[in-house]
């Protein structure tokens, strides 16, 4: 007989249960971090942040050695709500990040494969990347004020993943059993993580713009709205994360095409997933163009970026559930 019946692929049950326990731990940890960030946003004081790390150049003036520096267009003043709890929140986020990482590693060990072969695993990995991107931003650009705005979607996604997408650790279908999964899906996950931070910053930007518009009209603004970081800063952060994510997304699409060429016999077949990856890519390209187009920077460009993010989300949730295609990981 030609059909060889395989032995049960080994799933390490011990590892699998550690991994499942870590899901709860990371969600709780992220929730605590979110609470602390929210406290910082609400009760902190607005303080100036220097996004560019300028050594010795605060503003125009002479330093002790007699060097006179003159900045014609110094960075616009940027500020955000700050509170001592913010540092604690950052620490808790790092802890959550480690638990998240541990969850993914143990799941990979349990199933003995790359741990992103189904929707649940994909979402958890995207959250890891968003948090990583946020931590990078918090340290490199002092963008800690994004904490609340990044952790809200992260927790939402993790909740959805744990409640509706959860599947036990196990092997994947043969089409997903390839080293291209490491390349293509990793690129998609990393890009999605960065796009998510960009999207969080973009929404904050729109809120901050409203606050600033109200202030400009002479109205007083109270509550959290009053403590939002300046819109200029948020716009820049949002743009930077798109700049980071866009080439990754481009690369991910190309890697996917190469994989499809190997697995399905064509590198591009307008499968719904491919269509929506393409749409997402085009919309983010439009965003980058809009940023370079006079009269489109600011709100209009930001809205385009958010449309791109909506396409990204639709590609994940909408396409997987509404359309049948080769990509649906059931």
């Amino acid at each position: 007989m030609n059909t060889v019946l395989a032995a049960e692929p080994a799933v390490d049950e011990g590892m699998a249960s550690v991994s499942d326990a870590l899901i709860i731990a990371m969600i709780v940890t992220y929730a605590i971090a979110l609470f602390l960030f929210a406290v910082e946003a609400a009760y902190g004081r607005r303080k100036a942040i220097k996004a560019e790390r300028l050594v010795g150049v605060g503003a125009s003036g002479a330093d002790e050695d007699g060097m006179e520096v003159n900045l014609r267009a110094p960075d616009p003043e940027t500020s955000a709500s700050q509170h001592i709890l913010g540092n604690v929140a950052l620490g808790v986020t790092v802890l959550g990040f480690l638990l998240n990482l541990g969850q993914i590693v143990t799941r990979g060990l349990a199933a003995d494969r790359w741990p992103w072969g189904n929707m649940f695993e994909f979402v958890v990995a995207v959250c890891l990347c968003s948090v990583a991107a946020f931590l990078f931003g918090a340290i490199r650009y002092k963008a800690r004020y994004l904490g609340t705005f990044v952790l809200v979607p992260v927790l939402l996604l993790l909740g959805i993943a744990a409640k509706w997408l959860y599947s036990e650790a196990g092997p994947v279908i043969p089409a997903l059993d390839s080293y291209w999964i490491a390349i293509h899906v990793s690129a998609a996950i990393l890009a999605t993580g960065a796009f998510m931070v960009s999207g969080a910053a973009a929404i904050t930007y729109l809120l901050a713009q409203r606050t600033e518009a109200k202030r400009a009209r002479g109205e007083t603004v109270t509550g959290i709205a009053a403590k939002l970081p300046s819109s200029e800063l948020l716009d820049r952060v949002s743009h930077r994360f798109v700049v980071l994510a866009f080439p990754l997304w481009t690369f991910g699409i190309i890697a996917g095409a190469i994989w499809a060429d190997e697995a399905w016999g064509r590198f591009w077949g307008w499968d719904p997933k491919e269509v929506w990856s393409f749409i997402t890519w085009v919309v983010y390209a439009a965003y980058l163009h809009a940023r370079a187009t006079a009269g489109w920077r600011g709100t209009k460009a930001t809205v385009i970026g958010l449309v791109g993010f909506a396409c990204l989300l639709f590609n994940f949730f909408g396409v997987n559930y509404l359309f049948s295609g080769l990509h649906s990981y059931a």
Partner: protein
Amino acid sequence: MKPAGAADSTGKTGTDSPPRLSALGWARWAWRILTSMRTALILLFLLAIGAIPGSVLPQRSVSDEQVRNYFLDNPDLAPWLDRFYLFDVYSSPWYAAIYLLLFVSLTGCVLPRAAAHYRAMRARPPRTPHNFGRLPYSASFTTAASPQTVLAEARAALKGYRIDTRDDSVAAEKGYLRETGNVVFHLALLGLLIALGAGSLFGYRGNMLIIEGDGFANTVTSYDAYEPGTSVEPGDLQPFWLRLDDFQAEFIEEGDLTGQAASYVADVTYREAPGAPERTHTLEVNHPLSVDGAQVYLLGHGYAPEFTVTNPDGEVVFDQAVPFLDRQEGNFVSDGVVKVPDTGAEQLGFTAVFLPSAAETATGELTSDFPGARNPVVTLRAFKGDLGLDSGDSQSVYQLYTERMEELGDSPQLSPGETWELPEGAGNITFTGYREYISVQVNSDPARVPALVAAVAAVLGLLCTLFVHPRRAWVRARPDADGRTVVEVGGLGKTEGAGAITELHGISLRLRDRLRERPASDDTSTEKE
């Protein structure tokens, strides 16, 4: 709606570019960029929106069958949608119009930029401005070093810049790769489009089934389905040949995921051309066979039960494996048709169901509970009469046309080796065993490699355009009234943010440190004494 503050800030950022052209030239340049970029934006949006219906409605290029079903389900709507090419969105004239316009706009936009960039790269860095105070960054300090020494040190401090020394100053520029990357990226997209177009002209695609032990020669007639590109002739097919030696499918045996496929492996022997040496290859889902520019892919697999049919005189009139099609209900419940035209008497036909692991459901129905062949069983329904093969119309091998046939009855469950005596003394049929077959696709797409090269060029260009930051810097050294040298450093970043000020200030500091470290020889003597 638009807040007053926003208008101000966009106005401010718009004036960052250096006023290098005349007012008229500047306005014309700005106008051109403005219009073309806006057009590009709108076309990009149309490209995205136009792609949407293709993901919502079934597409002929993906599945003809789904389109036909859609026509059956929506007989009124479908013809209207078809009129707008909504079942062929990506090859429709209106979608082509969008992307061709986009690429015309792109060419018109990028080529002049490429030319301007080429000239800029060969020209000297821009001349030193008179007033550094107007630059986004400027610094000044004095040193005891002579102006020549300062300029020499400045050249060293401006590492990585293209440098041009003028009378009392050094002009430097770097980051040309950004613009180069931008041009490469956009032209690579154009190249990608051309490659894809060439692929649809000169490529072809074909599908067929190969049963274990059988061979396949790459000719148009060997295919069950064949789609040639517009300019492909039957004689253009690569003359390779291959045989399926063995196929093995592994499935998960236990647990929640029971029945999920674990791996498919097909061993094939092939020859590149008649007379070429035989080679072997292991065909797997992610491991196609590449032969003479064509790609052979393993798409799926199924069972081909083997039957022998004996006529009433006891002669064997049929002895063959017949590929059955998976119903896609899980566990490979498969349908097939056996046609026996040459019985010596009336023709025989059978419709059959193959169950690799036969089992009964709770309600007593026969089904298959595992995709592997744990308990292979066939059930048959026999017909006799005229198969209709002589009419000249081509028939599907997977369908029995029973209009001119008479039903003989249903068989019991047959396991391998078991025989069913047909009613009315029509002979007998034996289910002798089964082989497996694979479904294979052959693709020949001459655009694969050019498309990949263009895509890689696009990514590299993109990385340059997004991460290289052009800067201009100038250093001027002039003696002052006290016999010291006034050093001025100024510069600008041509892109937003991204640390231009930090970097320029770094240059100032480096230059000052270098001048301070100089040994107290020639020009510091005045201070020491």
